[in-house]
C-alpha cells in the first residue's frame, strides 16, 4: 500500500533478509527520485548511441539474434498457415518487434509474470514455452498452450507465468495490476510485466490501472510497445501526448523511452524498470519499434505510403542485427545461412506437430464454463430442446 510498508511485509519472510535490505534501499531511492520530479527519467528523443560490444555482450547478441530469428520464422510460418486456412480467427504477428520482445523478456526472472495482448506469439516463445504448443494453439488443437480454447490472441501458460494474451484492448492492464496486488499482498518479490500497444494508452483502463499501481506501490512494469500505429491510425492522431512514457507523470510514476531496435538497449532499460518494480515502485517503459507488415495477417496496410514502406526496410531489427553481427565479425554469412536453414527445418517440424495434434473433442465443450461444479448449469447443445423427454432441463 505504501512505500514504507513493502519492506516490512517482506521482512516477515525471515529467510529473505539479505535481499530485503537491498530492496528496501532501492525502494527508498526510487521513491525519493519520484518525489523530486514527477518525471523521474528525462526524455530520450535521439536514438540511443550504439553500445560498444564487449565479449560477453557478443555472446548475448548472438543469443538474441537466434531468438529473434526464430520468432521471425515462426511468425512467417504462422502467416503461411493462416493463408492456408489452418489457423482461424485473427492473427497478429510480432514482425518488427523481435528485438523488443527478446530484450524485455530477458529482464524477467522465470518466476515473474507476464500479461500481454493479442500480439503475443513472440513473447510466448521468449518465455520458453514449447513452440510446438504455441503453434498447436494457433491451429486450435488439444496440444495448444490453451488446449485450443484461446487461439492466436489468448495464449496462457501458468508454468511459464505467461498469464495471457488478451484481445480486448487494454483489458490486460487491470488484471496485471491485480496480479501485482496479489504479490504485494503475500509479500513475495515477483514482478508483473504488462505489455500493450501505444494505441492502447488512450483507453480508460490505462489511466485507472497506472493510478492504482502507483497509489498502492505495486510491483508492476507497464510496457508500451510504440510501433507508431494502432491498426491504421498514426500515434499523433490517437495520442495527444505521442511520447507515451511521459504520461507516467500524471501518476508521479518513473518512466523511460527506449529504442526497440537494439535488444541490448531494451534489456538494459527493462532491467531498470523491473528492478524498480521489484522494489515497490511501478514503472512505465516505452519501447519504440516498427510494425513491418499489416495489423494482422489479412491487413494489406494500404494506408502506408510507398515511401513509408520503403523506409520500413531500414527498421527491420532482425536484418539489422545480422548486419551488425557481420560487421563486428561475430559471425559470417554461411553461419547465419545455416542457422536459418536449421530454423526453417525446425518450423516444418513444429507445423507438422500442430497439424498432427487432435481437434478438441466435442464432449469437452462444457468442461471449462465453471471451475467449481454447480447444479443446473446448462449443458444443452444448440439443437437440443430445453427440456428432455423426461421433462428434465438440460
Amino acid at each position, binding site marked *: 500500500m505504501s512505500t514504507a510498508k513493502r519492506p516490512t511485509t517482506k521482512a516477515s519472510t525471515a529467510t529473505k533478509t539479505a535481499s530485503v535490505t537491498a530492496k528496501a534501499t532501492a525502494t527508498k531511492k526510487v521513491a525519493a527520485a519520484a518525489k523530486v520530479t514527477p518525471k523521474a527519467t528525462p526524455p530520450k528523443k535521439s536514438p540511443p548511441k550504439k553500445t560498444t560490444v564487449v565479449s560477453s555482450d557478443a555472446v548475448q547478441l548472438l543469443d538474441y539474434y537466434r531468438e529473434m530469428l526464430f520468432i521471425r520464422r515462426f511468425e512467417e510460418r504462422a502467416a503461411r498457415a493462416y493463408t492456408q486456412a489452418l489457423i482461424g480467427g485473427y492473427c497478429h504477428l510480432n514482425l518488427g518487434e523481435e528485438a523488443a520482445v527478446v530484450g524485455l523478456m530477458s529482464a524477467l526472472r522465470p518466476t515473474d509474470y507476464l500479461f500481454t495482448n493479442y500480439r503475443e506469439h513472440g513473447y510466448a516463445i521468449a518465455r520458453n514455452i514449447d513452440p510446438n504448443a504455441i503453434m498447436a494453439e494457433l491451429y486450435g488443437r488439444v496440444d495448444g498452450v490453451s488446449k485450443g480454447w484461446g487461439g492466436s490472441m489468448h495464449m496462457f501458460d501458468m508454468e511459464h507465468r505467461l498469464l495471457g494474451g488478451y484481445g480486448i484492448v487494454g483489458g490486460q492492464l487491470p488484471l496485471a495490476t491485480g496480479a501485482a496486488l496479489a504479490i504485494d499482498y503475500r509479500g513475495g518479490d515477483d514482478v508483473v510485466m504488462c505489455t500493450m500497444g501505444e494505441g492502447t494508452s488512450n483507453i480508460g483502463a490505462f489511466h485507472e490501472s497506472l493510478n492504482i499501481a502507483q497509489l498502492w506501490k505495486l510491483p508492476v512494469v507497464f510496457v508500451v510497445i510504440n510501433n507508431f500505429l494502432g491498426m491504421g491510425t498514426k500515434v499523433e492522431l490517437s495520442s495527444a501526448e505521442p511520447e507515451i512514457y511521459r504520461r507516467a507523470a500524471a501518476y508521479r510514476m518513473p518512466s523511460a523511452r527506449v529504442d526497440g531496435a537494439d535488444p541490448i538497449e531494451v534489456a538494459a532499460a527493462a532491467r531498470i524498470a523491473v528492478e524498480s518494480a521489484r522494489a515497490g515502485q511501478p514503472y512505465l517503459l516505452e519501447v519504440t519499434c516498427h510494425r513491418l507488415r499489416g495489423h494482422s495477417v489479412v491487413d494489406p496496410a494500404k494506408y502506408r505510403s510507398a515511401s513509408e514502406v520503403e523506409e520500413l526496410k531500414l527498421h527491420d531489427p532482425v536484418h539489422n542485427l545480422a548486419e551488425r553481427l557481420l560487421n563486428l565479425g561475430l559471425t559470417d554469412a554461411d553461419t547465419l545461412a545455416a542457422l536459418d536453414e536449421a530454423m526453417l527445418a525446425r518450423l516444418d517440424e513444429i507445423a507438422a506437430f500442430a497439424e498432427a495434434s487432435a481437434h478438441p473433442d466435442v464432449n469437452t465443450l462444457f468442461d471449462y464454463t465453471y471451475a467449481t461444479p454447480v447444479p443446473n448449469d446448462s449443458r444443452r447443445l444448440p439443437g437440443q430442446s430445453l427440456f428432455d423427454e423426461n*421433462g428434465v432441463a438440460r
Partner: protein
Amino acid sequence: MTLMSYRQALHDTLRSEMLRDENVMLMGEEIGVFEGSYKITAGLLAEFGEKRVRDTPIAEEGFTGAAIGAAMLGLRPVVELMTINFSLIAIDQIVNHAAKIYGMFGGQAKVPMVIRTPGGGGQQLGATHSQNIELYYAFVPGLKVVAPSTPADAKALMLAAIRDDDPVLFLENLALYNTKGEVPDHDEPAIIGKAKVTREGSHLTLIGYSRMAYVAKKIADQLADSDHLDIEVVDLCSLRPLDRETIINSVKKTNCAVVVEDDWLTYGIGAEVAATISDGAFDYLDAPVRRVAMAEVPMPYAKSLETAALPSEDDIINAIYQTLDAIGHRRSKTGPHD
C-alpha cells in the same frame, strides 16, 4: 439461530470469512474509512487493516479488474460496487475477463472472486441510479449470479460465493438491508444454482428473487390469512445457473404462476422464467404466466411518477387474482381485491 438484519448477516459473514481465510480481502470505494456507503463493511478496516480492506479510487473498471487479476493468483477478493448501476463501468472486466478467463485459457486459471452490489429502486434516485440490471450478468456463462432475499440466505450464499472458485455476482438490495430474520449460527454454505420453495402451496406459484422474493413471501402469507389462499412461493436465489427444476415442479402442482421482478418486463429476468414454465410445464399450465415488473421508462425522480413505475404489492395481488380468475379458481373467501 440469531435474529439479525440482512446487513448484519452480510457484515458478519464477510468478517468470519476474513478470519477463516487470509486470502479473503475486500476492495471497493468507500468501504474502509467511510465504512461503506451502506455500512456493510463497518468496522472491518479497523479490525483487519488497510491490506485486507482496501479503499479504492473511483475507478470501477480498474479495481474490479485488479480483483480479477488478484484472484488469478489465488487471492479471494470480495469487491463492493456501490450500486449495480455503476457496474456498467466495470462490465467489460466482468463479462469479457472474469467470466472468460477460465474457459478462454482452457481451464488453466481460476477466478475465485465475489462482486457484491446492491440493486433496488424506489428511493427517488432517478434514471441512472434506479436500474436493476442483474440480467446483464445472469446472461453470461462463466459467471454465477446469486440474489438472496433473507438474512439467512445472505449468509449462506455469501459463504458459498467466497468459497467458490468462480466469479460470483452477489446481488444485494437497498430495501432489504434493514430487514430482519433468523440466521443459523453454523457456517454451512448454500448450494449455488438452487432455488427454494419458501412457502408450500397449491393454488398458484409466485416467483421472485431478491427483494421481490421477500415481498412474494409476505404477500403469500398475508393472503393465506386474509383470503385463505394457498400460494406456493419460489425464491430463485440463483439467477445463473437457473434452477428450472424447482420452478417447473411447483407449476406442475399449481398449474399457474405469477413472476414478480424489480426490473423492466421486456427481456427481463421474468421473461426467461415465463418461457421456461411455458415450455417445461406446457401441459400443466392453465393460464398464461403473468409477469409483474417495472414500467418501461427511464425512472423519473418525482415520487408520484416513481411510484407509478414500480410494481406495488397491490399490483402483485391483483395479478394473482386475475390469474386465479382466468383458471376459474373459486375463492374460499371474498377479499377486498374484487
